[in-house]
């Protein structure tokens, strides 16, 4: 091989190495990268879960009010209710972090279950006015629910988990019913 051929081979190799270093390598995804930023807008952009100090849910004639304290969430209304602190926290976090899955826009609130049978939720921070939200019916596919902020006429679709946690909170208000087999049974049968 002549020295010119060797030089050309080196030039080509150097070009390939540069192409790899400058173009290909940045394309390779690292094994662990940060969580992808949400691409959808937040339903409640003014509130972060850590800011929420009080949660007030009203469904029909039932109201549950819970406040964040040092040890977690304490239910202040109705008095003496055993709703797990983590459940209130999970609900507040799910709602505060909810993303707009779809925006319906200005629409008849009735047809999205946002009047009768809806749940009104107030999230209060340490300061400022409460954020008020109405949670309505599930969407036809059953994977999300319709919701509306009090300061907006737009109906949006948010995750179904918010409704489920809300259901669990109201279910916790009713007396527990243990299956027959468990009554007085020792652990482990």
């Amino acid at each position: 091989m002549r020295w010119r051929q060797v030089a050309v081979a080196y030039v080509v190799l150097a070009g390939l190495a540069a192409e790899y270093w400058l173009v290909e390598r940045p394309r390779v995804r690292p094994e662990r990268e940060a969580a992808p930023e949400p691409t959808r807008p937040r339903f409640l952009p003014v509130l972060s879960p850590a800011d929420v100090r009080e949660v007030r849910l009203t469904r029909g004639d039932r109201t549950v009010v819970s406040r964040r304290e040092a040890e977690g969430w304490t239910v202040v209304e109705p008095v003496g209710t055993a709703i797990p602190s983590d459940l209130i926290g999970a609900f507040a976090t799910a709602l505060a972090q909810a993303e707009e899955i779809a925006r319906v826009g200005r629409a008849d609130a009735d047809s999205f279950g946002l009047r009768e049978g809806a749940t009104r939720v107030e999230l209060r921070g340490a300061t400022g006015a409460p954020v008020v939200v109405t949670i309505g019916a599930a969407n036809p596919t059953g994977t999300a629910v319709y919701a509306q902020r009090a300061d907006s006429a737009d109906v949006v679709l948010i995750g179904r988990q918010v409704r489920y946690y809300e259901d669990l909170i109201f279910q916790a208000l009713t007396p527990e019913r243990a299956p027959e087999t468990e009554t007085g049974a020792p652990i482990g049968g």
Partner: protein
Amino acid sequence: MAKRPRSWRALVGAAVFSVLCAAAAARADVSPGEKITDQNIDKVKDLISPGMEWVLKHGWPMTIGETKRIEWPKAYKEATEKYSGQVKLTPDGHDVLNYVAGLPFPNIDPKDPQIALKIMWNWGYTYLTTDDVDLRNFDADTGAIADHGPMTVERHFLLDHFRRLFWTGRLYVDPKPEKPNPNGYRAQQGLYPILEPFDLKGVGALGNRYISSEKQDDSWLYLPSLRRVRRLSTAQRSDALFGQDTDVDSYYGYSGHVAWMDFKFLGERDLLSCYHAEHYPVKWHEKVDWAFDEKWEKRRVYVIEGISKLPQYAYGKRVIFVDKEAWVIPYSDIYDRSGELWKIWINDMSYRKKAFDGANAIEYPDEMGFIPAIVMVDMQLEHATRASLPSPRFPGEQGWYFNQGEKAGVTDDWFTVAALVNAGH
């Protein structure tokens, strides 16, 4: 004047009748023999999860059965009584200390700040498998599902073995309660080889889990077409494999390490669950053939929310139901990162001493948790994977072999990458 008392009585009678009706409606409950469909789903709306509601509304059949006791195996109960008093959870809840065998935390206190972790550790050490298990000759179908209709099968899978070998908490097979364990394994698991479809023949997966939460799982995937063994990260355990809807972390309802999720205790509730399936092998519904046709009983469960600590984890959140008595997961709902309902994993369980009546079937001294089928539904894609465990194509196949050790081929050698590769050839 004579009419007034009658109208007064009528009014009181009407009021009492309305109050009784309202009370009956408020306490609407289910009774054995009832059939639940999308037409009367309101009867069970407080007894199911959103995922279960979705499948019922799409035609899943549900017959209510009687709630039956699930007795713990004698050896497990004795081990719990003997060792649970010494078990402690580390302050961060990531590791269980002084565990030997049995249920680590039999007394769950709702006021305990570590309650969610203790429930999940109890699930991690449940008696569903204590020593080893070999699941043989099972198949799976995956495809689009029709509303109130059948699955359009896109791919059919036939698998040879799913095996698990536990190194600690052993109760039946020597050495017990722990195998000599220089690697610090809690368990090893393998799913291989795939026999069908042809283009996936020989593919398999293998994994090791360690006692220490500081060590991530070892996970490998063997692809014979590439002649390569690919190592998977812990987060990739949540990726659906082989074109199915299922992922390794969802096996049994949840199979990830307890330390890799932030768990929250959302309370207790009654839940309809399938624990005494009558059909073995599974009986798929004639019309909605992606649903198993079984009896569902009301059970008391803990509700737990799990959010992965791993940034690349596929799911935003799991809502896991853990049975208070049996310490198993009847089903779990899975949400995406937007909080939208995404998937559900449903176990068809059957506590029984024998897979079926027959001279060749192993009879266990206690009722074991056979799982003749599982279904995983992707609600957003209207797609599902159903697995028959074992496949009805193999008459006489028991499917599940519990605590049989080497007799069932569950040896240390089987859980090596070399064995995975050899089986794929």
